[in-house]
């Protein structure tokens, strides 16, 4: 019971690092992919947050990014192993095109996450740990405090520049 809980917390940390790294590498905080992403960023900034962090959060809302890729890859690995994860990556790719997203953060995140999740299933983790872990990871960015999350992402974005 406690072991599973600790596995979920560890998976949440790994997923958090994975998706934030991929999203920042693909320059999600730089500009809104669609006008809606910029609107979310503007309102987060108006609420006391940072614009670059808000832009990344807006982009996460408006198109499947690396966080969605990580979640669906974990779901894919749970349902059907590595082929399931790669099928999820393909569906994220289609989702990106449907959502008018020019980037490849989601697809790259899904492919990377497929192998990361599979590797961790070999050392005692379960893919379900990563499904719950990714939901916790996205909760910390999008669901607790937009002000603090956007400032943290802004700081990481400045470090990348």
């Amino acid at each position, binding site marked *: *019971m406690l072991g*599973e*809980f600790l596995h*979920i917390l560890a998976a949440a940390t790994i997923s958090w690092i994975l998706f934030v790294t991929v999203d920042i590498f693909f320059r999600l905080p730089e500009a809104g992919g*669609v*006008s*809606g*992403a*910029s*609107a*979310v960023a*503007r*309102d*987060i900034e108006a*609420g006391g947050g940072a614009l670059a962090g808000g832009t990344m*959060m*807006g982009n*996460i*809302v*408006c*198109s*499947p990014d690396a*966080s*969605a890729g990580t*979640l*669906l890859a974990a*779901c*894919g690995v*749970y*349902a*059907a192993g590595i082929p*399931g994860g790669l*099928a*999820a990556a393909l*569906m*994220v790719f*289609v*989702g990106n095109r*449907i*959502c*008018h997203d020019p980037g490849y953060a989601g697809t790259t995140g899904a492919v990377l996450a497929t192998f990361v999740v599979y590797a961790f299933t070999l050392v005692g983790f379960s893919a*379900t*740990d990563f*499904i*719950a872990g*990714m*939901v*916790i990871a*996205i*909760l910390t*960015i*999008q*669901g607790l405090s*937009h002000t603090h999350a956007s400032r943290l992402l802004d700081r990481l974005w400045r470090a990348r520049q």
Partner: protein
Amino acid sequence: MIALYLVAAIAVFAAIRVIIEKNTARKLPYTNVMNFAVAGALVLLLDHPLSIVAAAAYFVGSTLEANAIASTYAGGMKR
């Protein structure tokens, strides 16, 4: 089993945050969390290899809806 309860609890928490939040644009990140949690719960509940297709279809569809709501809120398409 903990994973499923945790994911379901986060979905309910996010839904409550959506209702409480007044600003339309700032509701969307909470909706996003709820969509993540529902997509995760779908796969955890349905014990079938094709459940990934259901989760991806739900997630991409809900993201597209959030995209449409946000873009309409931003003033729609500029012609």
